[in-house]
């Protein structure tokens, strides 16, 4: 009967992960996106529903639940209805291999597949089928163009994305996501800065690989500056132009689940996943004092009364608190000081913030520029990086 218990356990975990996706990635993700977008544009973002507008996305969801589903007469009904579910499920399946942390000997991951990152890449590219299905079945010209653009974009960026993943697999010598984090724990440094055998001299290669991966990941999840498939100013809403109510929300859910999953994978591959940054105590207290200085300056000058400065104040207070806790923890010789999921989530949200920040920094690319960037820049750079790093660690500095 252990089958049945496994199936029940898996079903329960699905519900947990799905709820996590709906609440953390979709609701908090949309809230953060609107709030941060607001601050970057010197406005306040949502602020009326709940404290600081925290319940805005809950209200939006309730509203969307009451909206009528309109299926265009011309559409292909079956595919039209299946497309949003496909996108949402593809977003969910990514999270099977994402480890959230380690408590004692137990790694908090749904399943540590031995081909983890390959599985991740495969599931991430499943989204394109849902998007193409939605775009095509709507029988709407905007939607079709959006779907086609999305397909060509996603297949083009699939290669640089895979090259970034391969680079990490090559260094770590494993495809398992847990294994990649453990490889970083073993050598005592993130792959972004430190490689085995090369030590910190490997930093340029690590940073290059991380940039290639992040660029490709941004394109893969259709975010600005690669948001041509849903370019509002040219294609209305692209492939989901015809979708209303909760179906639209499912597309959004899938998209945010995917974007967060990409950020999570980048954190695992390049930023050491759940590992705690291994800094000496004096550095922690210096950082903490710098943050305290920012807080004091904001309070003295009265700048903190400005609602637009307030987020900086809050971030500085949180940062100062973190640094002080870390300082005393390291002094007391505790390791790790904080529970590992805290670090994983911090890294993931930092990368999500980076994605949102990019959205308001770069203008949208044209389709030919987009494809050029993938095939003529990222692909050769990714391949060369792979070859040079491989050459250095097998031939020049052979173990």
């Amino acid at each position, binding site marked *: 009967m252990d089958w049945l218990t*496994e199936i029940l356990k*898996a*079903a329960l975990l*699905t*519900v947990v992960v*799905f709820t996590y996706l709906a609440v953390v990635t979709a609701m908090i993700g949309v809230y953060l996106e609107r709030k941060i977008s607001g601050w970057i544009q010197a406005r306040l973002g949502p602020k009326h529903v709940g404290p600081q507008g925290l319940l805005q996305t809950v209200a939006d969801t309730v509203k969307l*639940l009451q909206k*009528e*589903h*309109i*299926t*265009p*007469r*011309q559409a292909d009904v079956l595919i039209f209805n299946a497309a*949003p579910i496909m996108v*949402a*499920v593809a977003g*969910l*399946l990514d999270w099977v291999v994402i480890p959230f942390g380690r408590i004692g000997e137990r790694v908090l991951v749904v399943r*540590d*597949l*031995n*081909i983890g990152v*390959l599985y991740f890449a495969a599931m991430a590219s499943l989204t394109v089928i849902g998007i193409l299905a939605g775009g*095509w079945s*709507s*029988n*709407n*010209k905007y939607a*079709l*163009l959006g779907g*086609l653009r999305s*397909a*060509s974009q996603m*297949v083009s960026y699939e*290669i640089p994305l*895979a090259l970034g993943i*391969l680079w990490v*697999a*090559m260094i770590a*010598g*494993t*495809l398992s996501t847990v294994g990649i984090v453990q490889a970083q724990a073993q050598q005592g440094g993130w792959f972004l800065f430190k490689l085995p055998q090369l030590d910190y001299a490997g930093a340029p290669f690590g940073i290059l690989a991380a940039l290639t991966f992040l660029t490709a990941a941004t394109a893969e999840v259709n975010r600005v500056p690669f948001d041509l498939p849903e370019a509002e100013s040219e294609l209305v809403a692209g492939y989901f*132009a*015809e979708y209303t109510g*909760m179906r639209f929300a*499912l597309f959004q*859910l899938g998209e945010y689940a995917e974007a967060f999953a990409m950020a999570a994978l980048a954190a695992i591959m390049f930023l050491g996943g759940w590992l705690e940054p291994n800094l000496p105590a004096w550095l922690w207290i210096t950082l903490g004092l710098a943050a305290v200085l920012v807080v004091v300056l904001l309070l003295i000058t009265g700048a903190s009364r400005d609602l637009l400065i307030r987020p900086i104040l809050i971030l500085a207070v949180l940062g100062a608190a973190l640094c002080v806790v870390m300082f005393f923890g390291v002094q007391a010789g505790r390791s790790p000081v904080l529970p590992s999921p805290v670090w994983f989530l911090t890294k993931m949200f930092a990368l999500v913030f980076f994605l949102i920040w990019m959205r308001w920094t770069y203008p949208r690319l044209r389709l030919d520029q987009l*494809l050029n960037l993938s*095939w*003529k820049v990222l*692909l050769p750079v990714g391949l060369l990086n792979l*070859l040079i790093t*491989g*050459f250095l*660690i*097998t*031939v020049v500095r*052979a*173990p």
Partner: protein
Amino acid sequence: MPKVIVDWLYVAVFAFVGTIMAALPLGIVWLLAPRADLPQKTLTYESGVIPFGQAWAQFNVRYYLFALIFVVFDVEVIYLYPWAVVFRQLGAFAFFEMVIFLLILLVGLAYAWRKGALEWT
């Protein structure tokens, strides 16, 4: 049970239960949301004008071209995965063999580039 079967059992259950979970809100909508049929409402959206023809028509052939190049490189990448996992143990020999494989593929990329298959215009 072997670990690998349990692993994929989980993936299968995730896909199955995930589909149900995703369809659930659609069911709630079916219960809650109003339904009113109007001929204008189910018309395809085309910036407010009556839609002209079907969207299921011809589209730019370049989309196929990129799909074809993609297939070549995706297969290449799939071959690279097993290599990447074991190449630390195999050492320099495996590395140079893969360099030869990649160079052949890069010739393919250079050819497509030169022929203008990577240009959108």
